[in-house]
């Protein structure tokens, strides 16, 4: 995503809905995730291989962050992940994200983002998540 199309968090208000992300977590991505995480997660529990909830959250958060003009030095403060249903590997998902709350404290902006991750037809919730980030108003690296 080019810099000009990125969302600037200081220019949007509480309740802002980010453009819906349509994505898919394929076998290759999942295998890389499992290797990096040194995970013994089983991909074939039932009839179809599934994506672990933390992998869904990690990858969709990463995709969202790439659409935001996030200053260097931003820190992840907390994360909530509620798994509503399984996601099969290779199935498309829709990721809806809302800016739930934005506040400023001691030179940092605290941001709460609420994620609703649904299946392609939007008929089934797979994950509900809440991400809290602490964003420096001025780069800490300068």
């Amino acid at each position, binding site marked *: 995503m080019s810099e000009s199309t990125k969302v600037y968090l200081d220019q949007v208000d509480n309740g802002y809905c980010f453009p819906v992300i349509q994505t898919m977590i394929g076998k290759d*991505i999942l295998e*890389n*995730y499992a*290797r*990096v*995480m*040194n*995970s*013994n*997660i*089983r991909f074939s*529990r*039932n009839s179809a291989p*599934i994506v*672990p*909830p*933390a*992998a869904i*959250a*990690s*990858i969709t*958060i*990463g*995709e969202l*962050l*790439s659409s935001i003009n*996030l200053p*260097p*030095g*931003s*820190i*992840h*403060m*907390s*994360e*909530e*992940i*509620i*798994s*509503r*249903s*399984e*996601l099969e590997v290779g199935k498309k998902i829709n990721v809806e994200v809302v800016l739930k709350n934005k506040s400023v404290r001691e030179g940092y902006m605290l941001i709460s983002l609420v994620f609703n991750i649904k299946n392609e037809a939007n008929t089934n919730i797979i994950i509900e998540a809440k991400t809290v980030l602490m964003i420096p108003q001025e780069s*800490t*690296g*300068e």
Partner: protein
Amino acid sequence: MNKLPTLIRKIDQKIISDYAKVSGDNNPIHLDPLFAKKSQFKGTIAHGMIIAGYFSDFMDRIHGSDWSNGGTLKVKFRSPAKPGDILSISGKIKNNPAGTTSDTLVKYSLQCENQRGESISTATAEIFINH
């Protein structure tokens, strides 16, 4: 309280860099030693979602597919994990799930500490189990 088997994970810069590639989170606080050295952390730090993933893995080992189909994980990142850290992810059952109802909510208290016993992260997890 029932204590559960501890999960041990070592953090190094390769894991952090590889995780950045997989997740797409390329914040320089994780990847750029020069930038990170000037930060409050004095060096690169691991992504919080790596720790959240370890907690989720911990629960997956106990509950298998049920964890992906109804588990709730709430994580607070208290102090960053850094390259060289050896993390212990442990947990206890907070409530007594024994009961007669068909579905019982089991609550876990989880923690992640480094090799110096410093708290990196704490979490709670909840899941309904069938008797």
